[in-house]
């Protein structure tokens, strides 16, 4: 099922004649979109790597004060959906509606995706390697280049590629910034003519880009797994004394936090307080919130139910089939929401008409999009429950099923819960697929925010934005805990 959208897009491209395909592909408009998308991709990835690495290094390896606070602050931008972030900026100044503005805002939204794995990597590296390098007479800079960076490389590249996937899939923020990319163009085509050929061809190009990134990411993922084995360093490394550079570092860090969090939040607060169109339609807010929570809950249950058997196969019965199934779900992970939505719309119109614009189709779309989040979490916890414990339980007289309920289930319970929670939170802030797939008249927090803010009723959009941020906070907190978990012990 996860491969359905991918298959559809490829099938569609194949069904068009080569001539038609050429006509659709070779147009100045495509060139412009390609340049925009690639430019944005490169710009955001480079900026995220630089910003994420710098922040991670400052927090993990130097003596800046209040490390825990900085860590939370650097992870926090993930709690502000990118389209809310761009709303904050756009409603403040229109000068961000440019290439540089887009790079700035998208980077500020997604640099934590580099920052978090870098923190984990810097923390997990064996300090002995660096100490040996110092004792061999290398300078700090040289050690960072020749020992630390190679060690952290999988994390760094993995994070960068993840940012890339998000950039390709990003719709709301870029639409608001009036910076056309493939994703926004697909949406516009879809709005003007349902299921049009140009939209599908654009989707093909987009999928191609995503798959390239995904391949690279899968390769990195393998390396990461290798590199983590048995590297829990017992000894923390001596933090570097910043000395006179400390005020400078603090100023830089504060600046990042101000532009990434301060600006959107301040702008949001301003609209809440002074916005002329601000209203608190409690009924509508509550209805949208209830719909959002209901959808998110349904999707979380569905994704978890789908993820459990896949994770079980992947961990306990490693084999070709298990690998293929697992990879497939990750392939879906690379598909932008817009492509999944587009494919599901087309498929339902062609084959199962009654499903079109219904709740089940929307939930299936969510499940395809967010299955990997549940899967990663459940997989992780399942590998914490070694089969040896099942053996012991069986030798103590429990049958297979009883052993599962008494031993495995309690052990993976937290992981399953966390996976479901991640899906829940992702769904509650999802915009693109919801816009395309939701039954008519369905209003979620994200779609209400979107319709208000895109018709420049900034004040009216503010309460929805606030709720969106509040909902995203627990997931972000979970994520930041995972990387610096040893702090709490």
């Amino acid at each position, binding site marked *: 099922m996860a491969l359905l959208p991918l298959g559809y897009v490829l099938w569609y491209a194949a069904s068009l004649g080569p001539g038609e395909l050429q006509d659709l592909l070779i147009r100045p408009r495509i060139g412009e979109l390609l340049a925009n998308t690639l430019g944005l991709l490169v710009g955001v990835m480079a900026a995220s790597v630089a910003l994420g690495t710098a922040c991670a290094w400052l927090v993990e390896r130097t003596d800046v004060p209040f490390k825990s606070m900085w860590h939370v602050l650097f992870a926090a931008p993930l709690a502000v959906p990118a389209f809310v972030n761009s709303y904050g900026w756009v409603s403040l100044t229109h000068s961000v509606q440019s290439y540089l503005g887009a790079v700035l805002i998208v980077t500020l939204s997604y640099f934590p995706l580099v920052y978090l794995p870098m923190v984990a990597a810097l923390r997990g590296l064996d300090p002995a390697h660096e100490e040996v390098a110092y004792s061999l007479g290398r300078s700090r800079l040289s050690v960072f280049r020749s020992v630390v960076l190679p060690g952290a490389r999988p994390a760094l590249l993995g994070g960068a590629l993840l940012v890339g996937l998000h950039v390709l899939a990003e719709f709301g923020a870029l639409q608001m910034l009036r910076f056309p990319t493939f994703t926004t163009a697909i949406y516009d085509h879809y709005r003007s003519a349902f299921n049009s050929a140009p939209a599908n061809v654009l989707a093909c190009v987009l999928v191609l880009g995503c798959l390239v990134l995904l391949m690279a990411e899968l390769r990195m993922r393998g390396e990461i797994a290798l590199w983590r084995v048995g590297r829990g360093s017992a000894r923390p490394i001596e933090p570097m004394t910043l000395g006179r550079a400390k005020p400078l570092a603090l100023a830089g860090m504060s600046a990042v936090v101000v532009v990434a969090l301060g600006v959107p939040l301040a702008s949001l607060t301003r609209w809440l307080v002074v916005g002329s169109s601000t209203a608190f339609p409690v009924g509508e807010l509550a209805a949208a919130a209830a719909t959002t929570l209901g959808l998110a809950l349904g999707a979380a249950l569905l994704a978890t139910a789908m993820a459990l058997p896949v994770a079980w196969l992947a961990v306990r019965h490693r084999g070709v089939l298990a690998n293929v199934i697992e990879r497939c779900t990750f392939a879906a992970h690379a598909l932008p929401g817009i492509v999944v939505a587009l494919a599901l719309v087309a498929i339902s119109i062609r084959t199962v008409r009654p499903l079109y614009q219904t709740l089940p189709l929307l939930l299936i779309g969510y499940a395809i999009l967010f299955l990997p989040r549940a899967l990663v979490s459940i997989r992780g916890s399942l590998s914490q429950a070694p089969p040896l414990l099942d*053996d012991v339980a069986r030798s*103590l007289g429990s*049958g297979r099923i009883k052993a599962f309920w008494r031993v495995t289930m309690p*052990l993976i319970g937290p992981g399953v819960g966390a996976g479901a929670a991640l899906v829940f939170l992702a769904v509650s802030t999802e915009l693109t697929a919801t816009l395309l797939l939701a039954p008519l008249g369905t209003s979620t927090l994200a779609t209400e925010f979107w319709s208000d803010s895109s018709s420049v009723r900034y004040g009216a959009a503010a309460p929805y934005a606030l709720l969106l941020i509040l909902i995203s906070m627990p997931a972000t907190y979970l994520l930041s805990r995972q990387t610096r978990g040893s702090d709490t012990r």
Partner: protein
Amino acid sequence: MSQVTLAGIRKSFGARSVLKGCDLNVANGEIMAVLGPSGCGKTTMLRIVAGFLDPDAGTLSFDGTTVAGPRQSVSPQRRQVGYVPQEGALFPHLNVRANILFGLPRKERTESRFREMLDLADLSPDVGSAYPHELSGGQQQRVALARALAPRPRVVLLDEPFSSLDASLRVSTGRAVARVLRAAGTTAILVTHDQGEALSLADRVAVMRDGRIVQVSEPVELYRRPVDVEVATSVGGVVALPALVGGGCARCVLGELQVKAGSHHDSAVTVLVRPEQIRLVEAAPGRLEAQVAAVDFFGPYATVRLRVRAGAGDDIEVVARVPGNELPQVGELVGVCVDGCVEVST
């Protein structure tokens, strides 16, 4: 408590044959150690007894009743075996009390049974509410044993249970475990690669090599009368020397050595001399002389490598074990005596 019998057990994983016809009989209430290097198949054998694996051929029976054999196999949960794996494998989500009572039916999970098991395993009652990660390695191992013993199993299987403990804890935990097993009167199979552990804790030791049991003996017997040089080496250091046997003694480079009166007459054999049988004395005319080549000092004892002139041929090196307070100098000439009987290996 049961008598456990393995007869002709075979097991292969793909093309690799791990057990090649394994025979072993463990008496009721006996602690049997299975000693062998890693990879010899001892863990596979244990997992077959537990029921986690089925043998390809051969039969396994408890008290004469077949539990695994051709076309039939009792599932692990019905076999009533207690299993104590290497790291103890306590259930991390349950406290000590719930771990120990895990294998009992709900109505038998009583305070008195719990106390009884704590007593047996020599654990203090206040660890009951502790979680596994709060216990020391030795305590975890004893809780794991108590958990295995609580449902009164027919046999307890211990898979290298002390190898994850540090040296000082290993000895004391081993002694405690053996005491608990004897107090409970349970039949036990202890798999280990540590000869000291096997010799000191078990009633009998089965030496396993390359998928087969090669010797089953009581510890003292095993040490004194190994069936071959390899078995001798696996339970301690040994010096193997070519010799001629006849008339109650063996002639070799160490002179005429006493052998047990037996069947060997005027034949070329190998004699096995334990390093602690070789004693260093003052060099004197008429005594066998050797030159000290190296001394490795271990504190209470030292091993001394000696070069002994072997007639016309090259020097032969033998190893002696001497008390740590009587160390010879390297290069010194010493006299050599051999105490007691030596074993003849054919």
